[in-house]
């Protein structure tokens, strides 16, 4: 009943917004008139797909409090950076997408490279997310796999087709509230059950001392409840990562790369009503992001604590192979604590998170496809109505492709692993290109393009010559030849792949830029490069409306959180 009410609302919003969709600008850019708070929550929610919610709970069980690094180190600082420093260029340049910014700043080939890799990636991630949802519904409620797949795709398609990006954004905000209000009681009941925070801590000490690392030694008692204390050596913490790899790999390369250059999230800030609002979007999103660990990681920590006392609690994670099946954490916790009624709300929240992830990918795909591939290579100078039509077609086309991907995931799981790996290689160096482009006017198009290529190549090489401990398949690394280095965990390997790739891209871009002639004049680069863009004075604004102060406040808050859970 709750589910049906929700779905009728979702479609209803799309239908109500249809009347406003008159031009391609309305459809792809929401006419650039979204208020900051709505865009901010959508910014967060687009990233808050189900893989995120379920994955972070799973990590909470697997790694404990260290999972908070994905928020407090791996997201918030980058969000502040994109709001304070990067939004003026994105918004001010009037680019309609991230690849288009690359075109304005560099050249056509850099843009096309980015547009193609990004478009393919969105289709694959929405396909994989649909696959995961259909599988979960099948497992949990016994629903038919095909029916859930097609039905959910149809709903997402319907509301985007009707209302374009605005509809996706409105729904994302609704999904945000649903996720928060649907999972909050779970945290409350779980914490109450284990005897509050102190009860959880003492139970997790048990988990830590009874588990052991790959070298066979047990962890120190606090390993599951502290974020930093056990990061001196990789072997001391369940994640198998040391602090430098964490801060540089995750905190700098991966997180800045994602939050600053991934069009999926940046699109939500680009459509804000003015530059001021656009800069506030990521800052507004950073505040709930900071608090999300309590909503998604705690259930995971509670789940593992309960599992280690299974005899008394009646809850335990299922075993898969020789480890726990962590991915089932959230669905099983919902079933364990929620009676009929509120269980419907919890499941709706879960489905909402699947759909918001999917919708985010589809809207980013149709924009990049239409503007950066179709308009610039296939059909130039057509009427606006034509591009609006193309956008709608791209939405259908993208959804169908995602469905195909979902079926591909059923049959060829290995191919999916490989593709995700390839995208990781392509994405890792991107932030170096943007950083140099925005702050160094000498960077040239050739420099950027070959820098990106060599960064991707470096990532592949690094991955090809190293393995994490206990790797069984070539997808985990070491597929080129002799293994030169063995990492204590897959996570550590990922972080270091990113660091290598970024550094290579950074160095090669500088080198080739110096060797090639600069084509774009200062005039061309106005509004695209930091030193050539006049900054709007914000002196007249009260301090609490100025992005710099807000950003600083958020950083202080996040530092305090890190200290509190040291």
């Amino acid at each position, binding site marked *: 009943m709750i589910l049906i009410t929700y779905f009728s*609302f979702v479609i209803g919003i799309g239908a109500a917004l249809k009347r406003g969709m008159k031009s391609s600008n309305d459809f792809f850019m929401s006419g650039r008139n979204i208020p900051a708070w709505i865009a901010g929550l959508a910014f967060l929610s687009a990233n808050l797909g189900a893989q995120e919610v379920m994955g972070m709970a799973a990590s909470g069980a697997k790694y404990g409090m260290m999972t908070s690094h994905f928020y407090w180190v791996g997201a918030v600082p980058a969000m502040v950076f994109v709001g304070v420093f990067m939004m003026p260029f994105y918004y001010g340049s009037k680019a309609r997408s991230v690849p288009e910014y690359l075109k304005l700043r560099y050249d056509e080939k850099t843009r096309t490279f980015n547009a193609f890799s990004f478009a393919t990636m969105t289709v694959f991630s929405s396909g994989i997310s649909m696959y995961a949802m259909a599988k979960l519904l099948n497992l949990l409620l016994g629903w038919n796999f095909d029916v859930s797949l097609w039905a959910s795709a149809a709903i997402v398609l319907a509301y985007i087709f009707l209302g374009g990006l605005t509809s996706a954004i409105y729904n994302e905000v609704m999904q945000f*509230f649903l996720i928060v*209000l649907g999972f909050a009681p779970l945290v409350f009941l779980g914490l109450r059950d284990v005897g509050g925070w102190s009860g959880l801590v003492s139970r997790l000490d048990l988990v830590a001392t009874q588990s052991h690392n790959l070298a066979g030694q047990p962890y120190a008692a606090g390993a599951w409840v502290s974020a930093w204390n056990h990061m001196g050596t990789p072997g001391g913490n369940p994640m198998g990562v040391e602090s430098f790899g964490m801060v540089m790999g995750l905190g700098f390369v991966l997180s800045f790369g994602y939050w600053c250059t991934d069009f999926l999230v940046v699109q939500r800030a680009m459509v804000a009503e003015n530059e001021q609002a656009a800069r506030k979007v990521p800052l507004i999103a950073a505040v709930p992001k900071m608090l999300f660990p309590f909503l998604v990681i705690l259930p995971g920590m509670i789940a593992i604590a309960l599992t280690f006392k299974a005899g008394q609690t009646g809850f335990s994670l299922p075993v898969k192979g020789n480890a726990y099946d962590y991915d089932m954490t959230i669905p099983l916790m919902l079933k364990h604590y929620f*009676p009929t009624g509120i269980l419907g709300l919890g499941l709706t929240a879960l489905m909402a998170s699947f759909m918001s992830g999917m919708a985010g990918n589809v809207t980013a795909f149709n924009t990049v496809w239409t503007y950066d591939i179709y308009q610039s290579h296939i059909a130039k100078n057509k009427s606006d109505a034509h591009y609006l039509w193309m956008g709608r077609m791209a939405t259908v086309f993208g959804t169908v492709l995602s469905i195909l991907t979902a079926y591909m995931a059923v049959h060829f799981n290995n191919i999916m692993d490989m593709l995700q790996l390839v995208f990781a290689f392509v994405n890792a160096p991107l932030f170096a290109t943007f950083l140099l482009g925005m702050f160094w006017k000498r960077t040239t198009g050739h420099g950027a393009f070959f820098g990106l290529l060599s960064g991707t190549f470096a990532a592949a090489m690094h991955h090809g010559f190293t393995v994490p401990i206990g790797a069984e398949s070539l997808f985990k690394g070491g597929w080129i030849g002799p293994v030169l280095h063995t990492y204590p965990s897959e996570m550590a390997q990922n972080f270091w792949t990113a660091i290598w790739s970024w550094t290579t891209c950074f160095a090669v871009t500088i080198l080739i830029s110096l060797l090639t002639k600069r084509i774009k004049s200062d005039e061309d680069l106005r509004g695209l490069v930091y030193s050539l863009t006049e900054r709007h004075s914000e002196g007249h604004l009260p301090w609490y409306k100025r992005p710099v102060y807000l950003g600083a406040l958020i950083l202080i808050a996040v530092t305090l959180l890190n200290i509190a859970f040291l």
Partner: protein
Amino acid sequence: MKLDLRLPIGLLFSIFGAILVVYGFMSPAENYRQSLGINVNLYWGVVLCAFGGVMLTFALRARSKAP
């Protein structure tokens, strides 16, 4: 043309809240053994209603200000 997003959010959560409250009153107590004996449907339904109500109030106030 512009739809005030607070309106659908308010409506949706008020309806969710109402469903949960009604369900919470009707269902027998043994349903709540798994939720530690707390009638979560009833209490959380009230919370959702309150949230929906606040959203609706804001939306309606904005609407009456700018006709």
